[in-house]
């Protein structure tokens, strides 16, 4: 008898599969602060990994959650957040600005002075002026940045959005003085200005490379790009032109195309120092049980809501009873197990970790009889068929399979359409694709409920592309109250308003909040200075090595 190639293959597969390990019971999840690494010291080379490429290395276009840590290490702007873990990190500090701005005219005029030592990195090495900030903010509208809706209240932005003007009269640059005027007071506007969308981009480079700025970055932050090879790696080197506190590391390398499971093995073997990935549940259980590694996992509340959006302009989701039926059909407690219990069941849209937020506890216990009754009342006694969109990053496919089954239990047949994570957001946020029903996860850009409500359910923010209001929900009461709450300065009044809005959103159910998940990250034993920043994911400039550094991969250019 001859041994055939596929027979050999099957034997190999079986041997491979039978090489499984032993079973470990996971321990309860608790917040683990980063271990004390002693006095930080300068130098060394840290390697991180990630499966997908960063979306862009262009501050005007980049808006991926995991890309943020990299882009925010390269591109700094007028303000930054305090380098502190936990809520203390939500405090704004001047960065490329000399000080926090003077706010005049009842909170509608912000007056900044750019630091005299603020400079662009290589190859320009020139002073950053207020005109560079003005150009960068106006460029957002020109390149149709996903950040545009945040800046729509700058005076003149409406005309630029409508296409009848190209410059913003609300942004005035005089030497190192920058004045930004908005149409109405907005207590969150400083947070919005601290987003890397406003990082200065030199006009001479942006106009020379209008479509490929990611390959021609000019840094304004503690790191600059030495190499960006798509699907291979990004290498950052310390930027000597940065006027703020310099980074500890000499170089930071981000290797691309590494899967989660491989990444954990590489970190454990000491080949890499960390990564922008969620620790896989199986590895999480094992690492938490290992005393050497348990403290190298950072589990933290990233102010996130994982939810399903329903396109309220499409049947049958235009009927609130159908949407509520779907809320009642889902057992969120089962979904939490998919995340190894890392998180809490979402009975509200705004994460409960947000200052001022309070749990509403809506729909947290499923009621299938009620769901069926609501469907029957809406004219769908036998349910209906639909398509549920999502992306392939673990554990989303498993989560959606459970949702699919739970919906099937009340008669709703949802066919899964799972695509690659890269490109999913742009597909879902393109209104011409008419996505009826899909999964989305939102992590706070800044610490205020407006980042959830204004960004994700305000009907006035619906745009043809880069639309974050994926439900296309446009309720005048909700829109009005969101915009009113954004102008209220008193914290308790604002908190009360946000709760009312949250209740209304949960009643109308354009979105089905599932979980407020926590993030888990694994770091090597030699790396210190890591912590989940409340808005900046990870401050790469704060990382340092405990032991003797490896030789740097490249020299600073």
């Amino acid at each position: 008898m001859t041994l055939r190639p596929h027979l050999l293959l099957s034997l190999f597969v079986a041997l491979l599969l039978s090489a499984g390990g032993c079973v470990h019971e996971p321990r309860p999840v608790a917040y683990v602060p980063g271990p004390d690494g002693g006095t930080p010291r300068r130098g060394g080379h840290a390697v991180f990994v990630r499966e997908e490429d960063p979306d862009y290395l262009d501050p005007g276009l980049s808006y991926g959650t995991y890309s943020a840590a990299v882009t925010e290490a390269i591109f700094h702007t007028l303000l930054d957040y305090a380098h502190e873990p936990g809520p203390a990190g939500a405090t704004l500090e001047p960065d490329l600005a000399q000080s926090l701005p003077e706010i005049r005219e009842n909170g509608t005029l912000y007056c900044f002075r750019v630091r005299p030592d603020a400079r662009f990195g290589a190859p320009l090495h020139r002073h950053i002026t207020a005109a560079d900030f003005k150009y960068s903010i106006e460029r957002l509208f020109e390149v149709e940045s996903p950040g545009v809706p945040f800046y729509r209240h700058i005076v003149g932005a409406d005309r630029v959005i409508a296409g009848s003007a190209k410059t913003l009269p609300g942004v005035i640059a005089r030497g190192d003085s920058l004045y930004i005027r908005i149409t109405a007071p907005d207590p969150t506007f400083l947070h919005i200005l601290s987003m890397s969308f406003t990082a200065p981009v030199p006009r001479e480079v942006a106009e020379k490379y209008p479509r490929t700025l990611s390959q021609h970055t000019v840094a304004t932050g503690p790191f600059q790009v030495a190499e960006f090879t798509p699907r291979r790696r990004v290498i950052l080197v310390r930027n000597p032109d940065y006027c703020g506190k310099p980074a500890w590391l000499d170089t930071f390398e981000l290797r691309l195309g590494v899967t989660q499971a491989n990444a954990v093995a590489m970190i454990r073997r000491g080949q890499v120092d960390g990564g922008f990935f969620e620790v896989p549940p199986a590895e999480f259980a094992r690492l938490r049980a290992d005393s050497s590694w348990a403290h190298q996992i950072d589990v933290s509340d990233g102010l996130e809501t994982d939810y399903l959006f329903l396109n309220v302009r499409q049947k049958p989701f235009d009927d609130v009873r159908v949407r509520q039926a779907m809320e009642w059909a889902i057992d969120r407690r089962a979904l939490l197990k998919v995340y190894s219990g890392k998180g809490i069941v979402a009975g509200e849209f705004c994460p409960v970790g947000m200052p001022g937020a309070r749990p509403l506890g809506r729909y947290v216990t499923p009621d299938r009889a009620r769901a069926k009754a609501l469907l029957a009342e809406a004219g769908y006694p036998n349910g209906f068929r639909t398509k549920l969109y999502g992306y392939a990053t673990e554990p989303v496919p498993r989560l959606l399979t459970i949702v699919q089954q739970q919906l099937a239990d009340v008669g709703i047949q949802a066919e899964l359409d799972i695509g690659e994570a890269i490109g999913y957001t742009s597909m879902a946020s393109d209104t011409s694709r008419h996505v009826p029903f899909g999964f989305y996860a939102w992590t706070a850009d800044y610490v205020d409920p407006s980042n959830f409500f204004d960004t994700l359910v305000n009907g006035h923010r619906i745009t043809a592309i880069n639309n974050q209001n994926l439900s296309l929900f446009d309720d005048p009461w909700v829109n009005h109250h969101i915009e009113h709450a954004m102008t209220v300065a008193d914290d308790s009044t604002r908190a009360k308003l946000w709760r009312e809005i949250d209740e209304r959103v949960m009643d109308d159910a354009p979105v089905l909040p599932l979980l407020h998940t926590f993030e888990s990250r694994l770091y090597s034993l030699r790396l210190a200075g890591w912590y989940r920043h409340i808005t900046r994911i990870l401050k790469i400039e704060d990382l340092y090595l405990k032991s003797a550094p490896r030789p740097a991969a490249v020299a600073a250019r």
Partner: protein
Amino acid sequence: MTAARRFARDRWALTGFVFLALLVVVAVAAPLVVGRVLHASPYRLGMMDKVKEGGRLVDVVSDGGIPIGPSASYPLGADLIGRDVLSRLIYGARVSLLVSTMGTLLAVLLGLLVGLLAGFYRGTVDTILSRFVDAMMAIPILLLAIALASVLPQGNVWTVVLILGLVNWTYLARIVRGEVLSLREKEFVEAARALGANDSVILARHLVPNLVGPLLVFGTLSMAGNILLESALSFLGVGIQAPTPSWGNMIQEGMAFYSVAWWVVLFPGIAILLTVVSLNLVGDGLRDALVPGSQERIGL
């Protein structure tokens, strides 16, 4: 000695045949076996269920997301979302056997047609068809299958059947062509022609019956390859889509968890291994029984 007797004397081939026969019976009777005998379901989620094990209630899926292993309630354990692995394995057998059988049938039909025409008519027809077959064979099977999967509607069982048929027929076309080139020179073909039989009668009545042996051997061995290919496609996410169970997508779903839930990947892996080995044993047995001493000639 008849072919059946020769086959029956090959104990390994017979063992493979018995295993496959049992598998087919279980797969065909899957709803009965799973529903009435096991009282289980391949689709029902047990995320929030508890079962009694050793006198105490335990979660089918723990709060940490780890499913229950092989136990009295779940003989082969539960998968990551609390579904019964044994039930999914049995239903997966239906899918794996169906797509590999139908895929092989399609490959046999295409290969037979092209091989017959090329071998019988020779000349220009042979040149064109043979070069086309050569070109197709130059493309790696898995690459071709993935390329086809990406342009055809995904997740459909019949799409996978089509892919398996389209990537496998070329081998058979070559074998059939070689056989026909030899058979067309035999006396019985000349006799048929002398009696006034036209080409289609010669092809259908005289040549095809003489190809049954190689076809049967190729079909059996090709099925083994098709089971692996279907598993590979499902593993890569372009084959059978969830929640329909196939052995390949069962492994794919559990792969990241093999260290804490080994049963999710081990049992489908064993099922693939045993089925492929059995098909190979039966294929080899059939070859020895039907085409004695011709292994080298038919190139199997």
